[in-house]
């Protein structure tokens, strides 16, 4: 009896304490996000796995089909692998070239030059041009007959490139377009470069380090967290390329010989043109697992090549 009374007392005391009030208020503040986390992140992933095992058109209840959707996408439907190949091709071109170009431009901007903010703005502006506007602009620039790019190529003696109307050139064309929008990464790299303490370079100079060894020994290690961040963002983003290709191909179609059919476009086609929600979910599960595996791989490997300042101090 006595002990329960004691417990009750303490319980009511707890309720009145500041810590308890703060906990209630804290949960209340965070509640909208906790709801969204479950309703729009966790539940949809579970639902996607479930739908992927069904035949589902929204109007009728999902019908269980086991692994049929997965069997279909890996066997008699040839397009998912084609689209995956296209997206991987794009990603393998756009991500490394984008990082290299951004790094190159950022290093130039970091050379104590005049007009830093002017050049930085110039490189950044294309990155904020709305995707639809930049896509129609590039459609025009890449016009095989009267486009500015081919005019430039022919005026320096190079042959015309059929760009968007050729199975060989359509993906390089999209990679080229993506490089135009590299400014976001340039700005990140410039900021990271400016964060590198001067005294590190001075110390390296005293040790007799040349330009290259300063770059290898100081710049690159201290830039590596920013490179990791952009690499991860780049992989996740580029494998999901959709907007520019959808706009240029006029819908979720593949262009010449489906060479411009990217994975998410095929998924869109299945989900929103044919209302094959089950099949589309299976497609989404596979790309989810691929992106997850790649992201984990990059993070795992990062202990080998990413340098954090706090580590150095230990």
């Amino acid at each position: 009896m006595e002990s329960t009374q004691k417990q009750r007392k303490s319980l009511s005391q707890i309720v009145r304490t500041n810590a308890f009030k703060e906990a209630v208020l804290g949960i209340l503040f965070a509640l909208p996000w906790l709801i969204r986390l479950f309703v729009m992140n966790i539940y949809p992933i579970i639902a996607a796995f479930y739908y992927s095992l069904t035949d589902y058109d929204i109007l009728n209840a999902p019908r269980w089909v086991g692994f049929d959707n997965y069997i279909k996408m890996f066997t008699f439907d040839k397009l998912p692998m084609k689209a995956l190949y296209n997206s991987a091709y794009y990603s393998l071109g756009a991500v490394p070239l984008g990082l290299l170009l951004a790094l190159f431009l950022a290093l130039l901007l970091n050379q104590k030059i005049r007009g830093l903010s002017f050049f930085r703005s110039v490189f950044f502006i294309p990155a904020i041009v709305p995707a639809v506007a930049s896509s129609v602009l590039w459609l025009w620039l890449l016009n095989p007959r009267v486009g500015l790019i081919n005019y430039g190529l022919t005026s320096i003696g190079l042959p015309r490139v059929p760009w968007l109307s050729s199975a060989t050139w359509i993906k390089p064309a999209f990679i080229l377009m993506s490089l135009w929008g590299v400014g976001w990464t340039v700005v990140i790299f410039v900021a990271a470069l400016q964060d590198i303490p001067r005294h590190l370079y001075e110390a390296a100079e005293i040790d007799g380090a040349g330009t290259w060894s300063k770059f290898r020994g100081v710049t690159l290690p201290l830039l590596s967290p920013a490179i990791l961040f952009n690499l991860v963002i780049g992989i996740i983003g580029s494998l999901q390329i959709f907007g520019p290709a959808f706009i240029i191909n006029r819908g979720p179609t593949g262009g010449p010989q489906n060479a411009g059919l990217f994975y998410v476009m095929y998924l869109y086609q299945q989900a929103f043109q044919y209302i094959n929600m089950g099949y589309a979910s299976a497609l989404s599960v596979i790309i989810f697992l691929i992106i997850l595996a790649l992201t984990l791989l990059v993070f795992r490997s990062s202990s080998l090549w990413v340098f954090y300042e706090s580590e150095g101090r230990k």
Partner: protein
Amino acid sequence: MSQDITGSVTTETYTDSKLTGYRVTQLIQRGAIYLILIIATAAFLIPLVWMASTSLKAKQNVMAMPPTFIPDPVMWSNYPVAMTSPGFDFPVLLKNTLLYAVLETFGIVISCILVAYSFARMRWPGRDFFFILTLASMMIPGVVTLVPLFVMFSRMGWTNSMLPLIVPGFFGSAFNIFLLRQFFLGIPIELTEAARVDGASHWRILWQIVVPLAKPAIATITLFEFLFCWTDFMGPLIYLNRESLFTLSLGLYAFRERWQIRYDLMMAAAMVVTLPILILFFMAQRTFIEGIALTGVKG
């Protein structure tokens, strides 16, 4: 060089000639850097200049070879024609875009401030677990949630309305929460603790101390969220099928479908969609550049 032969060289002249040599190589280096930067500037800007130039050309001059950058005659009338053409009803598109961008951004900013403060400055059971879950959720590719969310919203009868685009904003978003939390953590704890001791509530501390100090971060998420909504293509494409609901991005896509050979008008429409963003950039340049540094380096 001659100094070596005579062998009777003073240190002074030696360092002098070494310095001039150093200066010359430095000068060449500088020159090369500026040359590359100028070439890069041309490469990045010419497409935009070409868009502006084409948008002002007469129909018969658009495909002239060799291409010219200065339109003659200057066809300002391309703009009114483009902005009232079927499928690109500019006032309606602008109204819809602003409705989406302003409301969604407002929702994001309000909700993320509250959630970020809760994660940064309040103690509650499970907080750290949910924060890690929040970080992990940023790694979820949008494509995997696409179909279930569409199914959910269409069951709720929300498709063909702005609701699926706007309402989620009021429930926060992982990246913005993360960004604000990091910034809030950087605010000296003494400031908020002193106010606590004085008996100020969390609500008051948040709005009277933390938010004013976090203005740069809040400006950043406001700007980027607005930019995201303005340029968003996939969201409106999936949820808005009626033309009266189209946003500028979607309207421009419809325009491209219908007028695919009129590059003059297409570029005028593209300019109309792009210019507000460029104006926003020139007005808030510092917030853009510093905000990206905030997201990319400290993030």
